[in-house]
């Protein structure tokens, strides 16, 4: 049996899955000041009465690192940054322990200026004086040639507890994002490590010595051990949990819009033939843009508990949440109260909801029923409008070839899957006011925990080959090899797959879940003078996000009615 636990803002969802379906599902309240207790309570309750030996895997999705970053409650990290020519690296300053240094690598990975070891040694002294224990090192174009980051690391490694190198976090080009991401990793490292070591220890005490996996924002997992080097990758995994929980119910050959309607927010994502769409550049957290792989999601401040009010005679829903719905003792009317007042939702105190909506109805000069209908209708339409915005944004992403521009793929989902607390109440009306076919994810209340439990290990590899320079390299994988002139795109894909497989297994993947695919393959003839001097090849390959094998198809757990 396996466990999935997804910590949300108000409660954590936990499920225990056997090969034939869910054995137990429950919720425990989230204590934001003590996530450790929340997680442990969840795990204790879900395993109550089962022998520890029967549990074979635990997957956790937490808000630990996300909160740490948002609340800036992280350790002091040092940053050493070599930019070479371009935008002044001062613009990307992360904190006061940020040191731009000399050294420059160009776009093809050639060294232009060397680094200066004495300069680095001087910084080591300063950082030691500031009692810095974790350091990030980022050089421009280090994903083409990590030489400088590695050299700086050599000087640092004995002086600090842990050093994070920019080229190891992603193969993508983007120096400012590489800086931000490396800084995240270095900053949240001690919190992350302490937290999961404590979880592991507590579980071991109870006899649960099973592999712990952690959910990432891209809908995949990684083992706790491999997360130590990339703790930043655990941020914002919440939306991914819901998406993974709905995959099994999406039609195989269609595009689907997934809506997770919560109390405060609604998260949206797109599934194409049951595979979630990835964000091509990386996740953004607050003002920080990162290289952390993530699903393409859109989050809006609109949910069942959003505050409803009149502004200049116009009805407004959200984006704030001031507490529960009035039906459950909250301070202001909400869409949930509209559902209660209309009798669509049969739980909660209907009288309180009616009382809350009454002043709005009066001001609008209409009946309570009509006001409630309008509130609910507005909520649904706003969600749909935002969904349209997201789809337009995806479809208006620039492409760089004539072929893609003329025949490029356009996302046009015709179906919506809804999950989250008020899902069933919304589904019908969403269908009524749109052209979508709308259905509810079975087990909608804990589908996110199921998604967490079943998510497979994912990762990505970027390989770069330059036959003029005679080199193939994937710095992220610590791979670099001499190649000859005949090295082809096919060779490059083969090599990338081999590296990807190795990486996935190291990150905790089951060999039977390795569904590999090429995300990007480009080959350019490099012409110097009038002759072809070589080929410039770029490959990006990934393990597709998806569900692990060995479980009865999830769709069959919930016989349709």
């Amino acid at each position, binding site marked *: 049996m396996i466990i999935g636990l997804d910590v949300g803002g108000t409660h954590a969802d936990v499920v225990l899955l056997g090969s034939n379906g869910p054995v137990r599902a429950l919720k425990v309240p989230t204590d934001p000041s003590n996530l450790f207790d929340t997680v442990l309570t969840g795990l204790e309750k879900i395993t109550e009465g089962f022998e520890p030996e029967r549990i074979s895997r635990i997957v956790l999705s937490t808000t630990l690192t996300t909160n740490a970053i948002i609340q800036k409650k992280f350790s002091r990290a040092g940053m050493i940054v070599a*930019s070479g*020519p*371009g*935008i*002044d690296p001062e*613009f*990307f300053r992360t904190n006061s322990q940020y040191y731009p240094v000399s050294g*420059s690598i*160009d*776009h*093809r990975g050639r060294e*232009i200026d060397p680094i200066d070891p004495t300069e680095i040694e001087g910084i080591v002294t300063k950082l030691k004086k500031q009692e810095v224990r974790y350091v990030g090192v980022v050089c*421009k*174009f280090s994903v083409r040639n990590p030489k400088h980051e590695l050299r700086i690391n050599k000087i640092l490694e004995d002086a600090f507890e842990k050093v994070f190198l920019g080229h190891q976090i992603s193969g*993508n*080009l*983007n*120096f*400012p*994002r590489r800086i931000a991401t490396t800084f995240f990793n270095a900053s949240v490292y001690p919190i992350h490590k302490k937290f999961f070591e404590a979880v592991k220890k507590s579980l071991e005490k109870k006899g649960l010595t099973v592999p712990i996996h952690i959910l990432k924002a891209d809908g995949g997992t990684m083992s706790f051990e491999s997360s130590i080097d990339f703790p930043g990758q655990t941020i914002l995994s919440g939306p991914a949990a819901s998406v993974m929980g709905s995959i099994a119910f999406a039609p195989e050959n269609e595009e689907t819009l997934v809506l997770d309607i919560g109390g405060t927010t609604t998260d949206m994502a797109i599934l194409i033939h049951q595979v979630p769409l990835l964000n091509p*550049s990386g996740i953004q957290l607050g*003002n920080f*843009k990162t290289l952390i792989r993530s699903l393409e999601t859109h989050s809006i401040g609109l949910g069942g508990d959003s505050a409803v009010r009149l502004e200049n005679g116009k009805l407004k829903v959200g984006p704030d949440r001031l507490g529960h719905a009035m039906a459950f003792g909250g301070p202001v009317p909400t869409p949930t109260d509209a559902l209660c007042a209309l009798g669509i939702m049969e739980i909660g105190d209907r009288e309180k909801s009616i009382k809350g909506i009454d002043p709005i109805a009066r001001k609008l000069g209409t009946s309570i029923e009509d006001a409630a209908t309008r509130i609910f209708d507005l909520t649904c339409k706003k969600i749909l409008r935002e969904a349209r915005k997201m789809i337009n944004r995806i479809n*208006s*992403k*620039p*492409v*760089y*070839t*004539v*072929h893609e*521009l*003329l025949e490029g793929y356009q996302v046009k989902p015709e179906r919506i899957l809804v999950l989250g607390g008020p899902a069933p109440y919304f589904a019908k009306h969403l269908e009524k006011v749109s052209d979508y076919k709308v259905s509810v994810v079975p087990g909608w209340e804990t589908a996110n925990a199921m998604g967490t439990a079943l998510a497979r290990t994912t990762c990505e590899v970027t390989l770069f080959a330059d036959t003029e320079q005679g080199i193939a390299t994937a710095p992220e994988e610590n791979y670099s090899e001499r190649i000859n002139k005949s090295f082809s795109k096919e060779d490059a894909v083969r090599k990338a797959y081999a590296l990807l497989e190795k990486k996935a297994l190291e990150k905790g993947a089951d060999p039977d879940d390795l569904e590999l695919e090429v995300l990007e393959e*480009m080959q*350019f*003839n*490099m*012409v110097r003078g*009038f*002759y*072809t001097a070589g080929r*410039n090849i770029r490959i990006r390959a990934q393990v597709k996000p998806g569900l692990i094998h060995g479980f009865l198809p999830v769709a069959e757990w919930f016989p349709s009615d």
Partner: protein
Amino acid sequence: MLRAKNKTGLVFFPAFDWAISPTHPEREERLLYTQDQVFEEGLFDIEGILELKPDLIEIKDVQRVHFCVPDARSVMTESHFISAGGAKTIGRAVLEKEIERGFALVRPPGHHAMRVVHGARGFCNVNIEAIMIEYLRQAFDINRVAIVDTDCHHGDGTQDIYWHDPDTLFISIHQDGRTLYPGSGFTTELGGPTATGTTLNIPLPPKTSEEGFLYTIKNVVLPVLDEFKPDIIVNSAGQDNHFSDPITNMNFSAQGYAELTTLLKADIAVLEGGYSIEGALPYVNVGIILAMAGIDYGKVREPAYDPEGMRQRRDVTEWIKKTGEICLSNWRQRERISAHARGTNKFHERNRNIFYDTDNIVETQHETIHVCPDCSGVLKIDSSSDRGYRILGVTIPRKACKYCKEIGYKWYDSADETVFDIVLLQDRTEDKFLERKPK
């Protein structure tokens, strides 16, 4: 946080699957390293820099500007529809105030494409700036446009299209035509009889450095722009003045290009040439984008940059000053020169041979313009090529008087069917395009 002072739009379309031929300078690889640099610098993440997806232009947009032989589709590839579309997207975004300025970093280029198009010359098939400008004039309330062509080659295509248009100021700064393709663009080329002075050519000697370029911008281009008072300024932003460019002989730099961009304050920039794809383009483009956005570009330096080694020789400096004086003097005396150019004849004619180096075509033109006292005059071009086509193209300009319009239709209707393969009419007063294929 890094924020653009001017909201700047970018269309980046490197056409990674299009080339004139595999080893041609205009090939797939051209903007590859620029892309790498732009991505690595994170330019598209900067608050206030917007990446826009290019629209495709329509045939009508081409017909508004060109007489294509035998037709637009035959002389264009899909990539041209997109690169001209990219310029159009930027132009529209500027005029709709979605952005303050914009840069169409697109390929293939267009500034060697003239009004009549039999094929490709100087790597260009259709004039992407002219297509954009005429679209903007049609769709928005703009009239006066200034084009400053800073490509190292004379923008002879753009010059040809606007030769008779007094509302379009065309200034080309380029390497002296005696030393470089296309061999034109001398200070004596000042525009047709009804638009004398709104074409200005500033040929610079080989080995001109930052000093010479910036001198010319400050002392010649800016004063002329100030007087002309354009509604919009378009920069044909070729990047082949760079010291490392393989097919030219200038000494310009990334810093210089950025500075030029800051001085010029163009509303719209469109990429033209530039074939030093590794040593120049990545840095020049980053410099131009930062300068447009109003972000500090002081640290944008190409690896081989050596300002001392590229210091301008004194005789080069003197030459540039002299050329600038000639240009300014022509500009100041444009009314007198214009009166002389108009002469006393009702019609003005000229014969030309035009060579299409890229497609190896020779075209012969006989051009007739009505030297009209009330408008810029109706124009007809009798053009034949060694590929066997002979066409007649008639252009009734945007602000044509009634009389010129009548002449235009008369020319079109009475064209001898046995002589011409195609007869074409651009009626810009009604944004109409007519064609007859008699044979």
